[in-house]
């Protein structure tokens, strides 16, 4: 009798095991499109045998555990590389917007506006006594000023936007780290019974990846299965069931509301990208644009000041003006041009008074005297103008400048070219990181991803095993019947 009942037991165990296998295969199929899901499998083992007389007979099958297919090395690599990918993606995105500010490829770029300004001086030099040419020059100068103003405004706005982006990213980060801490607690609890909490781990891995998308991240797994998450500079974000928030206050980023700025230290991810742009890339363009505008104000005013307006014997008139009426006439080399692009405008000397443009070089301002205009228009091709070129490094902690001797045109041209080169660099970096990420994801999925055909095969395999086990029950039953029917 014990023989048949053990057969029934074996059949029951087999049915249970196959049903569990079917459930796991179903779970895999259901999660075929789930982000970050790692496929699971039932680990079956044969049950320990019992002895019948001298013979050992197996007790059938039992489920050892449900395991996950995970390659920890690739997972870790992906989670750390994703911060580079997101950093360059964000940077390429912002830069492509900035390119539109400096867009010189369509007709009406700053170069074109500057050229038209010089052309207006040429026309005036050809017709020094006439008011229409003077008025035309004032219009072109106004357009030039406005172009500088709006470019500077756009740059300031972009800088502000970086702070808004930063706020959003920090908000997301705080939410995510809080959830990681919660999951840490759940996982520790679930695994205290030594069974891996597969699906919770998948969720947590996704969240850690999300953190890494936001800021450069390192993480460690503690013995109890909880994760400690740090930024790459060592700022603690999550430990066990506790998380620490970042907060934004003006331009500063605080950790755990301790008012000491950590914004210079955070790198990588979206947050790194926003901070790099806010404190390095954009300020550098602003400084160089100011330098360009300031140089134009200074050089034009310097010559304009020593010329004479129509029928004028006094001279000393300015053409452009910068912030708070500063016309740089008393400018000493090396002094700051900060804000020049934002404030450049026509001076009150000439605004609306075309006759006051100092075209003449000789006191008295004869209507045919174009000497000063000839001097001013040669600024266009003057290659001996010294312009400072600013470089911002270390998030604006290191600001250096080098003196360039070039035409105004050359200076701006190099400057625009550099934006293109930087844009190109970001795009290439992004493409590189993306290709790497695609490859890593493929590798990861080759281990952890669900293959439907594979699962279908599994289904058939399990179904057949289940059929056979059911058959076993029937046969054992028949055997039992045969014995019971014996008389």
């Amino acid at each position: 009798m014990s023989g048949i009942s053990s057969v029934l037991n074996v059949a029951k165990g087999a049915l249970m095991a196959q049903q569990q296998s079917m459930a796991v295969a179903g779970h895999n199929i259901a999660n075929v499109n789930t982000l970050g899901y790692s496929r699971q499998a039932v680990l079956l083992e044969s049950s320990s045998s019992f002895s019948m007389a001298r013979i050992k007979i197996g007790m059938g099958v039992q489920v050892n555990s449900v395991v996950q297919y995970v390659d920890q090395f690739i997972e870790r690599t992906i989670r750390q590389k994703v911060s580079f990918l997101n950093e360059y993606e964000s940077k390429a995105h912002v830069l492509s917007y900035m390119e539109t500010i400096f867009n010189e490829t369509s007709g009406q770029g700053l170069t074109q506006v500057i050229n038209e300004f010089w052309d207006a001086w040429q026309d005036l030099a050809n017709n020094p006594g006439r008011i229409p040419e003077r008025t035309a020059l004032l219009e072109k100068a106004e357009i030039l000023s406005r172009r500088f103003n709006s470019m500077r405004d756009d740059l300031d706005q972009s800088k502000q936007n970086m702070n808004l982006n930063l706020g959003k990213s920090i908000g997301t980060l705080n939410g995510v780290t809080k959830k990681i801490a919660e999951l840490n607690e759940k996982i520790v609890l679930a695994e205290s019974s030594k069974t891996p909490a597969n699906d919770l781990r998948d969720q947590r891995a996704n969240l850690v990846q999300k953190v890494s998308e936001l800021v450069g991240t390192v993480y460690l797994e503690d013995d109890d299965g909880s994760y400690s998450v740090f930024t790459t500079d060592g700022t603690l974000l999550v430990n066990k069931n506790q998380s620490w928030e970042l907060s934004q206050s003006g331009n500063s980023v605080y950790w755990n509301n301790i008012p000491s700025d950590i914004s210079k230290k955070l790198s990588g991810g979206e947050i790194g990208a926003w901070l790099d742009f806010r404190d390095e890339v954009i300020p550098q363009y602003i400084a160089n644009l100011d330098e360009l505008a300031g140089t134009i104000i200074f050089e034009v005013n310097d010559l304009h000041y020593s010329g004479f307006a129509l029928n004028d014997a006094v001279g000393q008139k300015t053409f452009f003006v910068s912030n708070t009426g500063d016309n740089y006439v008393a400018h000493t080399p090396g002094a700051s041009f900060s804000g020049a692009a934002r404030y450049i405008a026509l001076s009150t000397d000439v605004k609306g008074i075309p006759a006051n443009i100092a075209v003449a070089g000789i006191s008295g301002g004869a209507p045919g005297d174009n000497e000063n205009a000839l001097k001013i228009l040669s600024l266009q091709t003057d290659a001996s103008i010294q312009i400072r070129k600013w470089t911002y490094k270390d998030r604006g902690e290191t600001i250096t400048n080098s003196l360039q001797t070039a035409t105004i045109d050359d200076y701006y041209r190099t400057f625009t070219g550099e934006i293109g080169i930087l844009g190109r660099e970001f795009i290439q970096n992004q493409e590189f990181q993306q290709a790497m990420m695609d490859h890593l994801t493929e590798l990861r999925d080759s281990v952890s991803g669900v293959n439907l055909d594979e699962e279908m095969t599994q289904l058939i395999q399990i179904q057949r095993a289940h059929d056979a086990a059911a058959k076993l029950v029937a046969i054992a039953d028949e055997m039992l019947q045969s014995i019971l029917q014996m008389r």
Partner: protein
Amino acid sequence: MRVATKTFYEGVQQRISRLSSELNEINKKISSGRNINRPSDDPLGLIDSLGLKSTLSQADQYLRNLEMGKSWLNLIESAMDQSGELVGRAIEIGIQTANDTQSPETRAQAAIEVGHLLDQAIALGNTQLGGYYIFAGYETLTPPFSKVVVGGIETAQYNGDGNDFNIQIGKNETIAIGKNGQTVFINSSLFDILGTLKKALEDNDVATVRLQLDNLKTAGDYLQNHMADAGAKANRIEGKESALTTLRLNLKDRLSQVEDTDLAELVTELRAKELAYEAALMSAVKITELSLINFLR
């Protein structure tokens, strides 16, 4: 290698999105006709094209300036030419009237003609171009010459200044296209000589008439020199003009090489990408059809 079902679909997505973005880039280039649509498309090309554009804009401006210089110089040349003819006529009159056989009445008649010549000379000195007096130095809005009588002799006084009008015709290159009346007319003493001749004819003073013949010749030579000078400058401007026109064509050509799309090349590229795109779609359809599910009944 084991391939997850997701990998198939992701691969299809990635390929299609990459090809779409490449198709879009080519389409942008074709529809805008430009190779560079934003700085990062070709930073060095952009730097080149901006430089070429600036040089081109300068060349255009210099050409406009030259055109203007040419009209000034042509007008000066013709004013000098007419003044020369006028001197020639005065010499003719001088030679005729210096003949002892001429009567005082004939000389008085001649004096009237010389008076007209003087008026003509003054009018030539007051030649205008586009509202400007070209012989007035910088005082371009004031008629440079007005008739005055000094010691009974008609002549003209100069109201302009001693400056010559300059324009820019190249980088650091200016040319004087104006001639001030002091240099051209006053220094030639043309007005004084004609006035003196007129007075001498009226006074029937043959000796003074004869004396003016040499003076007229000197003045004529002087004016001739200035005519030649204006002619030489006009030539220089023409030379410059043709050089700039050639340069301009060159610049346009180079700019077009940097900026403009090579349509034939792009269309070929577009065809290739289109094919790749279609192939990707086709393989996507084939791959997604492959499934064990289709064979399970």
